[in-house]
C-alpha cells in the first residue's frame, strides 16, 4: 500500500541554500548540489526545492541551476519559484523535474493551473499555499500569503484548495508561515481540516522539529506528505548545520506511530 512521503524542503536564496524562520532571517546552510547528493545517499522519498528570490524579483526560474539539481537528484524532485507560464513548466519537466510548484501566479490566475495540467498532466502540478494565522483581534482562521509572506489575502483556505483541485492541481502543499523554522510541530488542526476535504495528495510544511512531529502528522491524517526544512538541515539547539534524514527503520516507526519517537 502507498506510504506517506517524508520530503526535505530546500530553499534557494542568492544561489545557495538557506533556512528561514517565519519566512525571514535566511541562514546559509550550504550548497544545493551537495545537499541533493546527501539526500540521495539517505534515500529520501522526494525533494522539494523552492527558489525564494524568483517571484519577489520578478524573474524566471534559474533553469541552469535546476537542470544541475535535477541531473543529480535520484529521487523525485518538485521545483517552485518564479513559475508563471506553461512553457516554463514544460521546460522544467523536460530537464527532469517531476512536479512543478506554482503559488502566486496561480493565485492571481487560477486558470494557469488548468493550462499546466492540460500540458503536462495534473500529477506534475503542485499548488503551494502559504498560510498564516490571522493576527487581527476578533478574527479567527487563516489568511493566504504570497511573495514570501509580504502580501496577504483574506480568503478561505479550504474553498481555495477546493477551487485548485477543480482547476487541475495534482498536489496541494500547505506551508505554515508562523511555524516556519520554529521546530515545534505542525499545525495539526489545520492539517486535519485540509486533509478531511482534499481529494488530491496534500503535503504539509512548516513546524516539524523532531521525527515525533512527523509521526504525529501521519497518525492524525494518514497518507500525507510530511515536509520539513529545519529538521533535516539543523542539529541541536544551536542549529548547527548537519543534513540528516530518517533511516528506513525510523521511517517505519514514524508510519506506525511509535511513541518513543515523540519523547526526543
Amino acid at each position, binding site marked *: 500500500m502507498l506510504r506517506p512521503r517524508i520530503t526535505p524542503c530546500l530553499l534557494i536564496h542568492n544561489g545557495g541554500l538557506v533556512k528561514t524562520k517565519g519566512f525571514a532571517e535566511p541562514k546559509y546552510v550550504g550548497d544545493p548540489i551537495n545537499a541533493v547528493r546527501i539526500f540521495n545517499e539517505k534515500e529520501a522519498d522526494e525533494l522539494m526545492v523552492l527558489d525564494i528570490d524568483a517571484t519577489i524579483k520578478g524573474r524566471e526560474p534559474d533553469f541552469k541551476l535546476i537542470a544541475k539539481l535535477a541531473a543529480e537528484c535520484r529521487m523525485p524532485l518538485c521545483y517552485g519559484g518564479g513559475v508563471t507560464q506553461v512553457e516554463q513548466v514544460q521546460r522544467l519537466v523536460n530537464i527532469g523535474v517531476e512536479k512543478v510548484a506554482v503559488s502566486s501566479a496561480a493565485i492571481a490566475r487560477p486558470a494557469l493551473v488548468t493550462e499546466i495540467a492540460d500540458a503536462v*498532466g495534473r500529477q506534475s502540478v503542485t499548488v503551494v499555499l502559504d498560510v498564516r494565522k490571522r493576527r487581527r483581534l476578533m478574527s479567527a482562521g487563516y489568511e493566504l500569503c504570497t511573495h514570501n509572506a509580504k502580501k496577504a489575502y483574506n480568503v478561505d483556505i479550504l474553498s481555495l484548495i477546493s477551487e485548485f483541485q477543480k482547476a487541475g492541481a495534482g498536489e496541494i502543499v500547505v506551508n505554515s508561515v508562523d511555524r516556519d523554522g520554529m521546530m515545534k510541530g505542525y499545525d495539526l488542526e489545520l492539517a486535519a481540516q485540509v486533509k478531511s476535504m482534499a481529494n488530491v495528495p496534500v503535503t504539509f510544511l512548516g513546524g516539524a522539529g523532531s521525527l515525533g512531529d512527523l509521526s504525529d502528522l501521519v497518525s492524525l491524517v494518514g*497518507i500525507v506528505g510530511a515536509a520539513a526544512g529545519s529538521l533535516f538541515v539543523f542539529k541541536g539547539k544551536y542549529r548547527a548545520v548537519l543534513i540528516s534524514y530518517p533511516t528506513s527503520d525510523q521511517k517505519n516507526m514514524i508510519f506506525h506511530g511509535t511513541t518513543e519517537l515523540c519523547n526526543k
Partner: protein
Amino acid sequence: MIRIVDYGVGNIQAFLNLFDRLGLEAKRARDVDDLVDASHLILPGVGHFDYAMQGFNNSGLRVRLEELVLKQKVPLLGVCVGMQMLADSSDEGVLPGLGWLPGCVHSLTGKPKDDSLPLPHMGWNELKIQAPSPVFPSAEAESPQFYFLHSYYFSAKNRSDVVATANYDFDFDAVVRHENVFGMQCHPEKSHRWGEQFLRAFTEL
C-alpha cells in the same frame, strides 16, 4: 549500447545519470542513426497520452524502432507514460497507442473503493511480484519499493504478461512484459536502489 529514446518528452537525463552511476554506457537516441548500436531501449514519457504519442509519432523514430523491437526483438522498457504508450489505447486520449504490448490504459478515478484516498497516486508503493522474471532476480525479504506518480494505469490483456502489481485499494499492473517488450508504471530512475537493481537486471537481458 543502451539507448534512451529522445522524442522531446520525459526525463532522459535522469536515466543517463543513473546508467552512468551504474557504470553502463547509455546515450540518447534523437534520430535513426543513433539507433544503429542499440542493445537495449528505454522509452520514457510524461504528461498527457496524446501529447506523448504525438511527439513520438513526429520524431521520425517510430518505423525504425518498430523494426528493432518487433522484428529484431531488442529489449525495450517503457516507463510511466512510456509504458502506457505500449498499449493499444488509452482512455486519456484519442490517438491509438503503439500496440506493442496488448492492453488498455484506464483512469484511476473511482478505482480505489475507499474514496478518501487521494488521486493522483503519488508516492512510494510496493510491488507484488506475480511471475518469476529476470528483472526481479533476487527474492528479497522486503518487497521492492518504487515511486509512482500517475492518474492512469495499464491493464494488460493477457494476465501472463503481468510481472508485478501494485495495490492502491485495488490491484493494478505495475510491471508488464510481453516477450522483449517491458513496461513499468513507476519510476525506476527515481526509486533509489530498487530502481537501480531493476534497471541493471533489464540491461543484462
